[in-house]
Each structure stands twice: as structure tokens, then as C-alpha cells.
């Protein structure tokens, strides 16, 4: 029974799902195994040549000249082994990096597919650790352990067959001991894998804690609680030391067991050969060759064990990565023929002048939608019915926590209704290709995130093909011109992660400029002026009025100052996570009703 087979059956040591991902790199894997086998042949050749030289000189009185060709062959075998190990190293690296890169790509893609709501519940630090360090750790697993595990299953069998052809008693000793190795590996491997997984979780939690403490350093300092952060870091790192050491102890004990087996094997073979030589039952040549080869029976097994322990971090990371890849997104809508790929019909958003009966052709419609996030007490949104016709400007108002952002998220396709339907342009949003729908949207989030890069990079994410004139116009409309002009590098000025060098108000204006550059027919605004002063707000109302005029606008805000022309105001009541303190003034006890609660303000 091969080592790999034993492990595969357990399903723990070689994860089927991981092994399946090697298919793309099977060629390199086979190269690595082939190199390993050729290298084993070299080792046997070395032993045979060395034994034959010594035997010839001692027993047959051969001269240096007589054995010179064999000495040359010995040297050649070493050179061949050197070249093979070189090729093997390169092949191993190639396998490992290809698979690690593929997994990283899949992980990030999947995290994006799962969407912002899911990401909001994950720790960015932990997930990024899995995507960087975790996938890198997998390199060792795929590049080294896997080829070595396959080799460990083949090479000892070959060497043992050769020993059997030379000397039976030695074969029996070596075979008996070699058979113990997979048993020891599986036993210790199981112990170690469980511990390493715990250790990986701790490492991930250390990393998340550290990033959290780092981000919160200003707050910690403001409260004189630097020592608390220090303690958090020290505790996490000390726990890590103890967990790692206990994991390693298992790995070391397993290495100890294997060295023991190998040592006893070599020792026993040496003793038995020595005694049988004394009795004249074996030739010096055979004895020496078998003695020299016997450690090589154990070497591939020991290496596989060492690589296994060296790659356990990668396996634990794989657990985390696979668990993310296994998280299922929204179930695909049950619709025959290209479900989820339908683009919304363009005529709903373009300048199609055909008048439509209100209601039937609403651009945005929520039908009795309830949204409940798991583990969050009351639903975030309850029984929302809402309609926004083409060209209409509608405001969502309500106290904080009443579900305004959740509603915006519904129309972005970030939030999926627990009950009810979201319909855009006449089609159920869940049947549409979300990306195609979002091409028609411009969104101003409540807390805009700035990517690491220049101001221009951050603007261009809304439209990479925007011209300099378009950028300048957007900047001017958002009232950022005087700020950008005052910067030494203008638009090329880098902004830090999280927009460290810009105030919340400036970030919000960048988000507004993004929306302008996006130039989309449907505009979703989430508290667009929450961080702006009254003066800026008034100025923005003047510049944005004409721009918004021809577009369909849904704005979430208590008082939607930015939108000059409002057709309707929809009031959301307390739904969840809301301070009852503010609930009463809205006079609604949890229900939301777009139709009844709407205040006719058509101009």
C-alpha cells in the first residue's frame, strides 16, 4: 500500500480538492517525479561502483589503473545526480507557484462574487493573509510534498527490489522496517495536521488582531490605552509561540521516529552483513553495496515526511481557502436559458421618449422586500415596496438604521432580498447579469473607500476611458478644483489606503466626482453630503441640479439636500438596529410603505 493511497483514503493528508487542482501542472509534477527516480538510480550506481572498487582492490589486488574507469564512473554518477537535483528544484518551484497563483486568483474572484455583504462579515486581514501568505505556503505543498510523496511510494520499492536481487536477509530487514514508515507517517501526520490547523487559526487571528490594533492606534492613543494594544499583540504572539512549538514537537517526534527506523535499519543491516561476512556467507562487494544503499530506502520516505510537515501550514491555509471557495453565493435564479446572463433591455435607460404608464415600467422597483441578515436580531428592512420611474427623483428618508443603505444595496445587487423581489427595468434583478446592470448605475457610497493610488486613479475606476476634460469637469462639479490645484502633484497626488490624507468630506466629494465621470442613467446616492458643510452642500446642489435632471435618482438621506428637484420622499420607519428614541417621530412601528408613506411633492 503506497503512502499516498493511505493518505488519500483518509482524505486529510492529501486533500482531494487540492490534488484536483494540480491537473493543470501535471507535466511538471511528472517531471519532478521522473527526476527523483533517475536520481535514485544514480545513488544505486554510486553504491555499486564504490563497493566494486573497494572489493577489487582489497580482494583482487587491483591497481589504481585497473579501477580508474570505475572511479570515473563514480564521479560521473555524482555529476548526473547534481544535474538531476537542479532540474528537480526548478520543476518543483514551477508546480508550486502555478497552483498557488491559480488558487489565489480563484479565492479573490470568489470573494468578490460573494459580494460586499459577505466581505463585511469577514476580517479583511485574515482573508488577505489567506490570499497572500496562505497561497504562498501552498507552494511548498504542491511543489515539494506532492512530488516527494509520489516518489516515496515508488523509489523505495525499486531499491528494495534491487536489494532483494543481491541479498535476501538484508532485504527482509529493510522491508520490515520500511513498512513501518507509512504507519508512523500517518499516525504523526494526523496529530500534526490537527494541531497545525489550530495554529493557522491563531496565526490568522494574530494577524487580524494586529491589523485591528494598528488601524485603531490613534484611538488607542487618544484613550491612553496603548498598553492594551501592546498586551493584545504580546498575548497573541506568545500564544502563537506555544502553539507553534507544540505543533513542531509532533513534527520532530515524527522525524525522530523515522530517523530511528532508518538508523536501526542501517545498524541492523551492518551487523547482519558483518556477521555473515565473518561466516563467509556473503561477498565483500555485495555487503558494501547493500550497506551503502540501505539508508537510501528510508531517505525518500523521510524527505516526504519532512516536506509534509513543512507544508502543513499550506494545508491549513488550504482549509481556509477551500472553505471560502465552498461558500455559496446567492442561489442562481431558476430561469431556463442563460439565467443570470441577461442584460437589462437598454431602452429603459436611454433617451427613449415613449411615455409609459407609471408603475408598470419603473426603473427601480422593490416588491414587498424583507432583508434579514443572519445573527442580526430584527430584519434590516421589512416589507419595503418602492417604485422609481424613469427620470424620477426619489428620496429615501428615515432615521439611521432604518434601512436606507440596505435599500440602496438592494438595487446595487449587493444585498439580496430574503423575501420579495427587486425588479429593475421590468426584470427581476436576480435573473440579470449584475455586472451588466451595474454599468447603468452611478453610486455614491456613504463611506467611500479610496484605493491606494493617485486621485486620478481613484476617479478613473468609475470610467477608465474618461478624458482629462471629463475629469476636470467632475472635479469642478464636486467642488474639488481648488483642493486639487493646491496639491503639488495635482491629480497625480497619491492618496493613502482608506484615504488617510483626505478628510471624510473630501473623500465624499471624490465619490461624487466618480459618479459624474460614470455618467450613468441611474444614480444611487447614499448620504452623499453627510460630511460636507452647509456652504459646500449648497454649492453642490447648484452644480448637481442640472446634471441629475435627466437621470433617475434614488437618494438616501435624512434631508436630501443635494437633490434640488425631488418628486417624492419615501419615509422608512424603524426596522432594525434603530434607536427607538428616533422611531416615534416617524410614527411608524416597523413597517415601511412606499406608497402610503410617500409625501406627494411633485413639482
Amino acid at each position, binding site marked *: 500500500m503506497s503512502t499516498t493511497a493511505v493518505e488519500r483514503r483518509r482524505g486529510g493528508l492529501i486533500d482531494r480538492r487540492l490534488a484536483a487542482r494540480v491537473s493543470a501542472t501535471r507535466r511538471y509534477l511528472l517531471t519532478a517525479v521522473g527526476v527523483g527516480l533517475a536520481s535514485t538510480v544514480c545513488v544505486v550506481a554510486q553504491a555499486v561502483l*564504490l563497493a566494486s*572498487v*573497494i572489493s577489487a582492490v*582489497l580482494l583482487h589486488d587491483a*591497481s589504481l589503473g585497473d579501477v580508474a574507469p570505475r*572511479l570515473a564512473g563514480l564521479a560521473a554518477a*555524482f*555529476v548526473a545526480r547534481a544535474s538531476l*537535483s*537542479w532540474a*528537480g*528544484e526548478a520543476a518543483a518551484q514551477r508546480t508550486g507557484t502555478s497552483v498557488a497563483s491559480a488558487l489565489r*486568483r480563484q479565492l*479573490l474572484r470568489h470573494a468578490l462574487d460573494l459580494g460586499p455583504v459577505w466581505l463585511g*462579515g*469577514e476580517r479583511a*486581514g485574515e482573508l*488577505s493573509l489567506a*490570499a497572500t501568505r496562505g497561497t504562498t505556503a501552498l*507552494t511548498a505543498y504542491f511543489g515539494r510534498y506532492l512530488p516527494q510523496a509520489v516518489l516515496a511510494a515508488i523509489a523505495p520499492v525499486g531499491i528494495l527490489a534491487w536489494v532483494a536481487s543481491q541479498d535476501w536477509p538484508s532485504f527482509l530487514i529493510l522491508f520490515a522496517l520500511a513498512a513501518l514508515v507509512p504507519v508512523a507517517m500517518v499516525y504523526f501526520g494526523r496529530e500534526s495536521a490537527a494541531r497545525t490547523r489550530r495554529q493557522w487559526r491563531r496565526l490568522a487571528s494574530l494577524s*487580524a488582531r*494586529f*491589523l*485591528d490594533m*494598528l*488601524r485603531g492606534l*490613534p484611538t*488607542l492613543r487618544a*484613550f*491612553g*490605552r*496603548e498598553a492594551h494594544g501592546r498586551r493584545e499583540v504580546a498575548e497573541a504572539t*506568545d500564544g502563537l509561540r506555544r502553539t507553534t512549538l507544540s505543533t513542531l*514537537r509532533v513534527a520532530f517526534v515524527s*522525524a*525522530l521516529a523515522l530517523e*530511528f527506523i532508518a538508523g*536501526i535499519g542501517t*545498524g541492523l543491516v551492518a551487523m547482519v*552483513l558483518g556477521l555473515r561476512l*565473518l561466516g563467509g556467507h556473503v561477498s565483500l562487494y555485495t555487503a*558494501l553495496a547493500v550497506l551503502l544503499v540501505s539508508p537510501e530506502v528510508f531517505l525518500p520516505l523521510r524527505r516526504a515526511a519532512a516536506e509534509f510537515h513543512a507544508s502543513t501550514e499550506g494545508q491549513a491555509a488550504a482549509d481556509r481557502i477551500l472553505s471560502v471557495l465552498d461558500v455559496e453565493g446567492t442561489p442562481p435564479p431558476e430561469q431556463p436559458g442563460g439565467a443570470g446572463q441577461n442584460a437589462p433591455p437598454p431602452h429603459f435607460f436611454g433617451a427613449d421618449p415613449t411615455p409609459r404608464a407609471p408603475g408598470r415600467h419603473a426603473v427601480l422597483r422593490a416588491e414587498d422586500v424583507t432583508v434579514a441578515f443572519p445573527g442580526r*436580531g430584527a430584519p434590516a428592512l421589512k416589507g419595503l415596496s418602492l417604485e422609481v420611474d424613469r427620470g424620477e427623483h426619489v428620496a429615501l428618508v428615515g*432615521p439611521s*438604521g432604518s434601512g436606507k*443603505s440596505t435599500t440602496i444595496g438592494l438595487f446595487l445587487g449587493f444585498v439580496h432580498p430574503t423575501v420579495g423581489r427587486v425588479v429593475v427595468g421590468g426584470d427581476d434583478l436576480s435573473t440579470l447579469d449584475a455586472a451588466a446592470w451595474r454599468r447603468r448605475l452611478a*453610486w455614491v*457610497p456613504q463611506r467611500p473607500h479610496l*484605493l*491606494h493610488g493617485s486621485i486620478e486613479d481613484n476617479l478613473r*475606476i468609475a*470610467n477608465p476611458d474618461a478624458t482629462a476634460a471629463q475629469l476636470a469637469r467632475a472635479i469642478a462639479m464636486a467642488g474639488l478644483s481648488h483642493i486639487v490645484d493646491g496639491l503639488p502633484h495635482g491629480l497625480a497626488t497619491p492618496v493613502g*489606503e482608506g484615504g488617510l490624507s483626505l478628510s471624510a468630506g473630501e473623500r465624499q466629494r471624490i465619490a461624487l466626482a466618480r459618479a459624474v465621470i460614470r455618467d450613468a442613467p441611474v444614480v444611487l446616492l447614499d448620504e452623499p453630503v*453627510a*460630511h460636507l*458643510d*452647509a*456652504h*459646500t452642500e449648497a454649492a453642490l446642489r447648484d452644480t448637481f441640479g442640472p446634471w441629475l435632471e435627466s437621470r433617475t435618482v434614488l437618494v438616501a438621506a435624512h434631508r436630501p439636500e443635494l437633490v434640488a428637484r425631488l418628486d417624492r420622499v419615501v419615509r422608512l420607519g424603524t426596522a432594525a*438596529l434603530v434607536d427607538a428614541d428616533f422611531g416615534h417621530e416617524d410614527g411608524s412601528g416597523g413597517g415601511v410603505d412606499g406608497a402610503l408613506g410617500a409625501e406627494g411633492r411633485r413639482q
Partner: protein
Amino acid sequence: MSDADLPSAGVVRTLLRIGAPPWRRLALAALLGVLGALATVGLLAGSGYVVDRAAFRPGLGAIAGVLAAVEVLAFLRGPLRYGERLVAHDAAFRSLARWRVWLYDRLEPLAPAGLRGWRSGDLLARVTDDVDVLQDLYLRCLLPVGVTVAAATVAVTLVAVVLPLAGAVLAASLVVALVSAPAVAVVTGTSRGREAELRGRLAAEVVDLLQAAPELLAFGREDAALAAVEATDGELTAISRRRAWATGASAAIVTVCLGAGVTAVLALGVAAVRSHDMGTAMLAVLPLAAVGAFETVPAVAVAAVRASDVVAAGRRLLELASIPVPVIDPERPAAVPEGFLDIAVRGARLRYGPELPWALDGMDLDVEQGGRVGLVGASGAGKSSLVHALLRFWPLQGGSASLGGIALDAFAQGDVRRAVALVDQEAHVFAGTIRQNVALGRPKASDAELADALSRAQLSDWVASLPDGMDTQVGEDGAQVSGGQRRRLALARALLVDAPVLVLDEPTAGLDKESGARLVANVVDDARARGTSVVLVTHRTEDLEPLDRVVVMDNGRVAREDTGLAVSEVAGSAGTAGPAQVTGSTGTAGSTGSPSRSVPEGSPAARAGGPSGRH
């Protein structure tokens, strides 16, 4: 010279100083390692001797002693290696913990202003990857080199005793391997600095991608962001392939040297046996001893590569440590006086770098104990910089600031921050529970005190509605709570401190305006009852109503200050607003229908509720 410019040896010395290596454990590990390596040499050479000798059938007595020794070595080798590894790793992890805490200690005094421009993803990479690399300083650099040199010396001596020329040849092949293999690995391996830089970039790009996911998705730019990650990944892959090539080359060199050594020693042995310069029993011993002597040599080639990794990682960490600390506590800090903590700022100037414009440029401010002052002004007017200065996050480069009549820079930073509680614009919500987040303000606070702070921040009803109450998890960076709840958590935290001065930097951002105004009114009423001073930075007219006085800032100084006027009118003239806007704003304020309250600061009423009421 800053630490970051140190030569390699200096970096290693500095790292050792910080890591305070447990030398005794390391010495023990080295001893065990050398004994383990010698056991291998002995096992190989001894078993060669046994077979060689036995071939001439001398009788059991002649080989029994060596045979027994071989068996003992076969048993000992495993435990020796086990002991070495365990002790060495324990030593390395102890240093690792010191390096991590050291790094935190170095970063802590830099926040918030000193760390501007650093990406948290990059910092994360430094603290996890770079610090982890440091453990190799012991495990893969110092120990393997020491063990190999010691064990090889003993093996060469052994061979030289049997056949001096063979000893010399073996020594030569070892020296060639020990010098050329590391040299090849280091020279052909690509720049470590570049790789480390790319790893940092990759981590930062991944964090960016995950944190900005909503925007990227909304704008359909997720594929571009993924492509950027992949480009970095591709560069890293190319580097690691070159590195694998170099590692393979250096391993090949070791094998070739081993082959040369073994072949040459064997040839010399054959010649010596033929000329009767050496006994026949030693012929097998020589090549096998040579094999044993080479066993740990590959580790030295690895050590050279790892050493440059360690130095690169160490240099990057020391680079962080060399960022100048903006504020240093005085050696003998003054005690913050009990009683009246009047704030007086005179002609204050502040900027974040010599090349940057002045953020404060001649700022004046007076807040007497119990005073309630609003700070308004356009973005970039210097409001937050004034807050930084008041909390001693950044020093003044000109002018003066005092608290309770004593210069601000005479106090320890911690003492200032116990007296001046801050609700920051960017107040961080930590992953953890509501309780943990609020208790940060005063860790020893009782449940009743926590509940009181939550109630004063108007969070009690929300908390009561949650299934887990105060033990509800708020998610990373408060992701599971709304913007308004975030602000109020930060407020509750600051209220729990019960400091004589409360500084609120945009406390209502993310709240709707009525809620915000009500929150501020509650806080200010609460402060009035306790005699707490309030400095409120805001852009909202509504928030200013309960304040005594409003200071309008522009270009880092006071543009206008009013006490007697309706504050909303003053706020309307913030920034560059002309008369038209003032009128407009007044109209807005009028429409909300709230008369402004102008309690003159320092009035008997305010004084009466002063610190005596608080204590």
C-alpha cells in the same frame, strides 16, 4: 546614521540586540547539532570499517567493539537531532515574540500622524512575514553554519589521522563547497529587496481589493483590480523561479564537490593500500567518512540565501523604527492640575513636514473650564490639526498651548489624554464586542457605568434590542453596525472617561441631521451638568445651537469669533461664504425654529457646575 542605512552586520547586531537571544539555549542546540552530525559520520565510517574488516574474517572479537559503537550511534542520532531542533526553535520563537512587541512599541508613538502614507496591508506584511523571516537568523543561519564547520573539522581530522593527504583533499573539497555554493546562491539569486517589496505590494493590493470591493463591483472594475494583483503575482513567480534555479545550482555544486571529494579520497586510499601506507581495513572508512562530513553542507548554502533574506527583512523593520517620533514626553512631566483646566492657545503654528504647508498658522483659542465652543471652517481650515495639537498627537512648531495654565508640552501625553477625551472623526471600532469597545475608555468601569455611558450616547435602546446585548460582536472595523451606531459607540467610549474636557471631532457625521443635533444637544447638556468643557468641531449649523461660542477657522487661524450672535448665523459665514450665503444660512437656521442659546462662558452658572460638581 539611521538604523535603516546600517550595513548587513549592523542589521544583524541590531536584530540580536532587540531579540535578546537566549544564548544558553542556542549553545545547547549547537552542541546537540554537532554531536548529531558526528554520530552520522561515525555511523557511516564505523559500518564501513565493520564490513571491510569482516571481509578478512578476523573473528567476532575483532569487530565486536566497533559493531557495538555503530549500533549505539544508530540509536543516538535521532534523539540528538530531536533535541537540537526543539531547543533551537524554542530559542527562536522567544526572540520572535520580542521582535513583534518591539515593532508595536515602535509604531505606537507614531500614530496617527507619523504613520500617514503607510498602507496597513504593507504594515501587516512586515509584521507577519518579515518578523517570521527573522527566526531563520538562528534556525537557518547561525546554527547550521556553526554545526557544519565544527562537524566537518572533526571529520577532516579523523580522515587526516588515517591518511593525511586524504584529509587535505577532503578539507579542500569541503572548503570549495562551503564557499562556492553559498556564493552561487547569493549571486545568481535575484534581489531580495525586490521580492520583499513585491510581497508587500501584493498584500496591500489584496487588502485594497477586499476593502474596496463595493466600489470596485459597483463600477465594474473588479477585473482590473484582479489583473493588478495577478501582475504582481506574476512578477513574484518569475522571481521565485529564478531563485529556485539558483538554489538548484548551489545544491548541484555541493553534490559535485561531494563526488570529487569521495572519488579523490577513494583513489588516494587505493594508492595508499597498494603502497602499504594504510591498512586495508581503512579503505571503506575514508569515502564513507567523506559522505558523512558533507551531510550538513547543503544547509550552509541555504543559510547564505536566508541570511540575505533576514538582513533584508530586518532592514525593512528597522526602517519603520527610524521614522521620527513626533511627540516625546518630557523627562519630568508636570501633573495635570485638579480643578479648572482652561485651554489657551496663542499664535499656534503646526505643519506635518518641512515641505508641507502650515496646517495651523497663528491660531488662538480660549476655552475656560465648563466652556462650550464650536469650531467651524471649510475642509483644510486646520480644525483637525488643532485637535491633534490639543491631544499632543503632533507638536506645535510655533506659538503656545496650555492646559490649566501649564504649557501643554510639559505634560506626559497619557496625562493630557486622560484629561482631554476625544471623539475622533475617524474613531476606530475594534473587532470585538460593544462592551470591549466602550470599556476602552475606562477598562475598570462597572456594568452600571458602561450602561450609563451607552445611555448618554443614546445607545441603550439599540443595545437592549440586540440578542447578545453589550456582548454583541461589531465586526471588523465596525462592519456590522451602522454609521450612526459607530459614532455613538465612539462617543460612549469618550463619555466613559469622564474627563474634564471633551473634544468632539465631527461626532455627527453619518447621522441624519436631526439625530445629530439632538445627540450634540444631549451631550452638551450632560457636559453642562458636569461642568465639562466641550470643543466641538463640526460643519453642521444645527449642531452649534447648544454652544456658547463659535470660532470660525480659515487657513489655520481664527477668521471670526462670536459669542453674542446667533451661532447659526456665524456658522453660515464659515469659509469663503459671502453675504448671500450668510443670509441663506440664516434663513435655514430660522426655519428650524430653534433660538440660539448664548450662555456666556465663564458665567457663574457654568462655573457652579464646574469640576466640583464632577468630583
